[in-house]
């Protein structure tokens, strides 16, 4: 039981819940960029919520070797089975030899493709996620790959979901700190006032933003410190980078603010050229 890759599109990666807790080895968490989509697509199929899925920009064509059931989440777009358009918010049955085409999303950026039983490539350090920074986990999909699929459970009969509509532009909430005091008093206000354009150099390591440089008050070197998914690092150019799932364990640039955890998933769906805005959320204590 497997799926054969005909075309992988610009990039298709295997992802699951990643590798938390391995910082002592210098290994970052990685995992699905849109964790909500990972859970949603797996729930449609009766899989464990963190079963391995495919994270794709589209242009992905697979052939079913055996009967398979698949489901999509994340950015919305066309899905074809043997050339016929399918509704993407529910389980889709592929007969032996059927061709599944996952188009590039009409709005957004990344689509999540789950299969009943989960993608069953070997685990590396407890996860099937591809960590693009560390070079860990299964290689990006290539034409001709045979993706093993695990044994499927019972697919829930009536579940369906609406793919989250994506207007293209995005507003996310942030919590100031830990190093907002390394910047001039106006920098945080400028960060929250500006519409930031997503750079085409963005990837799973970080979403790079173009706009006015944020000015530092302290210019000394920051001793390496741990960062998290959503940390807004400001590089020596003064431009912000929102760290994604494949961020390093530690970083050497000051973090002016951190995007709220639930909102980081949304950043999986902003395409280069789109705008991101930040809105200040209180710290978790509500202060």
């Amino acid at each position, binding site marked *: 039981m497997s799926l054969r890759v005909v075309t992988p599109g610009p990039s298709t990666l295997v992802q699951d819940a990643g590798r938390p807790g391995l*910082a*002592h*080895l210098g290994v970052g968490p990685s995992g699905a960029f849109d964790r909500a989509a990972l859970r949603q697509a797996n729930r449609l199929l009766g899989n464990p919520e963190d079963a391995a899925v495919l994270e794709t920009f589209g242009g992905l064509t697979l052939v079913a070797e055996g009967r398979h059931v698949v489901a999509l989440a994340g950015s919305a777009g066309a899905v074809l089975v043997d050339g016929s358009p399918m509704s993407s918010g529910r389980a889709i049955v592929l007969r032996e030899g059927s061709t599944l085409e996952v188009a590039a999303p009409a709005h957004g950026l990344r689509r999540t493709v789950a299969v009943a039983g989960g993608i069953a490539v070997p685990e590396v350090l407890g996860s099937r996620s591809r960590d693009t*920074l560390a070079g860990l986990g299964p290689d990006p999909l290539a034409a001709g790959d045979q993706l093993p699929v695990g044994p499927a459970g019972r697919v829930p009969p009536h579940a369906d979901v609406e793919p989250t509509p994506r207007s293209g532009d995005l507003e996310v909430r942030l919590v100031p*700190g830990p190093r907002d005091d390394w910047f001039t008093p106006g920098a945080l206000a400028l960060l929250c006032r500006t519409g930031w354009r997503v750079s085409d150099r963005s990837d799973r390591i970080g979403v790079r933003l173009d706009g006015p440089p944020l000015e530092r008050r302290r210019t000394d070197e920051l001793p390496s410190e741990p960062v*998290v998914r959503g940390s807004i690092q400001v590089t020596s150019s003064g431009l912000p980078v929102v760290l994604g799932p494949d961020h*390093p364990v530690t970083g050497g640039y000051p973090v002016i603010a951190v995007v709220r955890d639930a909102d980081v998933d949304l950043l999986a769906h902003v395409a280069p050229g789109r705008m991101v805005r930040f809105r200040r959320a209180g710290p978790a204590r509500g202060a």
Partner: protein
Amino acid sequence: MELKACGDRAILLDCADLDEALAWHAALSPRVEAVLGARTVLLRGEPAALRSLLVETRPAASDTARPSDQAQPSDAVRIPVTYDGPDIAEVATLTGLTTAEVVAAHTGRPWTVAFAGFAPGFAYLTGGDPRLHVPRRDSPRSRVEPGAVGLAGEFSGVYPRASPGGWQLIGRTAVPLWDLDREPPALLTPGATVWFEPVQSGEAR
């Protein structure tokens, strides 16, 4: 130690130095997921719960927090190094030592793994000869070879694989720092004691 916000799923303890960070790390890990930096400790979890936990926690006594104090001499990792790195003359100039004295300083005292980061298997080694404290290079190299041995600030480290890097490179080793077929795959894990040993070669003398 000062508490810093770090989003809604973590907090950052900003410490005076590495020793204080190690002391807090020793007191809190493994009760909470704690990640060490050069003078910080990241705690993962709900920030209000972490703040409550900190109220009732004291840092570990400094004499037990340094990982080297718990290590047995027999556990030491020995890393043979050919000291022909492209920055060894620059390091000699910066430190006022001869290149032979740089090698003697680097190999003359044990180092300990304080924390990991940057890349899988990359360990920040501390506790070596303080005369070797040098700044990073002004402009990082776009490619550093695997096995390159470097210095930056109070730390020494070995690059596990080819990557960009800004450390001052003084030598190289053939010992694999990262091997997925080994358990654990990282040769150097926090707490380990490390001795560098000079490989005799024409260039290194």
